[in-house]
């Protein structure tokens, strides 16, 4: 029996430049369209150009390049979930935009009416950060601070603040908290997935302790916010690698992947839904 009243499920992807949002969407589309997982495509999306172009790149063992500034894609993927003989259907709406757009929201402290309408609907959020990305701005530490305060203030010209990544991500969550305030006051905990993309780039010993520990080590302010607000948001951390390696940086990996039936078969997700970190093939 197919539910006629299935709600539209919207997922908002948040992340700065080079955080892995677009490649995730393309890999997600490939997984859904393949049809052997829990969530399957329920027909084809009306507009496939963006999804198809990106997923074609992945199938050639090439990561999608930086999303152009004029791209604001809203991918609507009809899906169905079959469980215990019951089929639930809906539409997965996944907006994607270039990472600088989210940085602009942080800096300008505002978002568009279009975003507001999207956020006002029931939706989940995936917040991305890519392991070892050179776009990550490290937090201020005592050594830097002691050096800054050990000398007189400079020549009077005020420099621009370059906020650490954990500050930006924490503020994004606080923005969402504002936008979701009505839902939160109704006792609903909006779902927030913290996604560490390129999980394969995380050193092996740190992979073993899972994405939550990785986030706690790299972004302690963000991790504390998550811990302190777990009754407001339903947080969960994930490590995601769409191919299990790096087509660009890992010698021989691209060739090895292309030699397989599925060049993305090495991809997996590490989740902590059952407590400790557990890998799951995708």
């Amino acid at each position, binding site marked *: 029996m197919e539910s006629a009243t299935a709600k539209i499920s919207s997922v908002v992807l948040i992340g700065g430049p080079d955080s892995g949002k677009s490649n995730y969407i393309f890999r997600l589309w490939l997984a859904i369209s393949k049809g052997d997982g829990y969530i399957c495509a329920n027909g084809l999306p009306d507009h496939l150009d963006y999804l198809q172009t990106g997923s074609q790149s992945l199938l050639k063992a090439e990561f999608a390049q930086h999303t152009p500034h004029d791209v604001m894609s809203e991918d609507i993927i009809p899906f169905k979930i079959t469980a215990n003989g019951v089929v639930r259907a809906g539409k997965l709406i996944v907006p994607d935009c270039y990472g600088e*757009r989210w940085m602009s929201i942080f800096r300008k402290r505002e978002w568009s009416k279009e975003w507001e309408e999207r956020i006002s609907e029931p939706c989940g959020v995936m917040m991305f950060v890519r392991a070892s990305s050179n776009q990550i701005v490290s937090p201020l530490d005592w050594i830097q601070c*002691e050096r*800054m305060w050990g000398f*007189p203030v400079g020549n009077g010209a005020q420099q621009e603040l370059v906020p650490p990544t954990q*500050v930006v991500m924490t503020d994004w969550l606080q923005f969402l*908290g504002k936008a979701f305030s009505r839902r939160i006051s109704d006792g609903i905990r909006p779902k927030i997935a913290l996604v560490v993309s390129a999980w394969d780039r995380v050193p092996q010993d740190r992979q073993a302790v899972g994405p939550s520990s990785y986030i706690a080590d790299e972004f302690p*302010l963000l991790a*504390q916010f998550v811990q*302190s607000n777990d009754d407001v948001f339903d947080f969960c951390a994930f490590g995601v690698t769409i191919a299990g390696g790096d087509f660009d940086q890992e010698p021989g990996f691209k060739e090895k992947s292309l030699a397989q039936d599925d060049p993305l078969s090495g991809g997996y997700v590490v989740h902590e839904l059952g407590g400790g970190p557990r890998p799951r093939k995708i």
Partner: protein
Amino acid sequence: MALSCTKQDCTVGATGTCLLLNKPAESCPHVIVSNKQAEQLEGVESPAANTTAEMEEIGRTFFSGFELGTSDAAEIMRSSYGTLIAVLGQYDVGKTCFLASLYLMTACRQIGDELAFAGSMTLNGFEARARRLRRWKEGTLPKQLVDHTVLPDPRAPALLHLALRERAADRTRFDLLITDLPGEWSTDLVKDASTAGRFSFLKRADGIVITLDGPMLTGPERHAAVQNAKLLVSRLADTLDLDRSVPLVLMVTKCDELGMQMPSIVGSVAQHAKNAGFCPRVIPIAAISRTPAEVSSGTGVMDVIEHILGRNPIWTPPKSQVVGVQKGRNFARIRG
């Protein structure tokens, strides 16, 4: 012609008066004379980077992130109780350094095992202060705490917000609202009772911190510094008639330079505060240590906060001095 100063708390740009009393102010070696009309604001990116976003209709605007005005703070307090902490003290005694250190300790998870960061409406403000990028701007400084802040506003007397939450037990949340005031405000209050009006928010304060420069209290200026501190206490007690049950901290800064030894002369300030009816607590701190190998940065900083929150296990408040929220001490009443 515009004046600015490399000294962190100097407001020559706003007042035309040099804090080191150089006359004319331009003769001060720290003063910068400029024809620049407006400096670029921190955090505001070039318009060219946002052409797409600018064309769109704004759907929601968020807090500026640098400071909170009294209206902004009232919004926070509509949903939870805000613990208002007033940090007072003369120029260059370490008030901003204290804020920077508190933030960095929180960000680095060094505020103990019991508390954790739970949010801040002024993360950019803390970051900018920790990096010494947020200085008083040119122009006339407001004579009151600002009411509402927006992104392009320069640094002005306002509040910083830091929410902490207990990790265990009943997971109590503390929304700290900490003042960021220029040193001149304290100097002016000592000199001129008519400036007391700008401190009317102290009637709502949950804690008062008087900042004292530790090395100064061991040097030739110690007697003058102590007299200033005593006069400030007297103003709080007599002119402002503050509730004596509010925790009062005499925060002695830069104690890393003193090997964390408390200057003995601080005792006379504490005694003066006791005589005025307060129950002062003297806390030495090393907010950002110049000798980190010997004294860790952040030493004593959380003691100040824990004391005001009444969480300090060493400190047991006498029954007569239990801090409570008095009827009518709501924030809205003292605004404007």
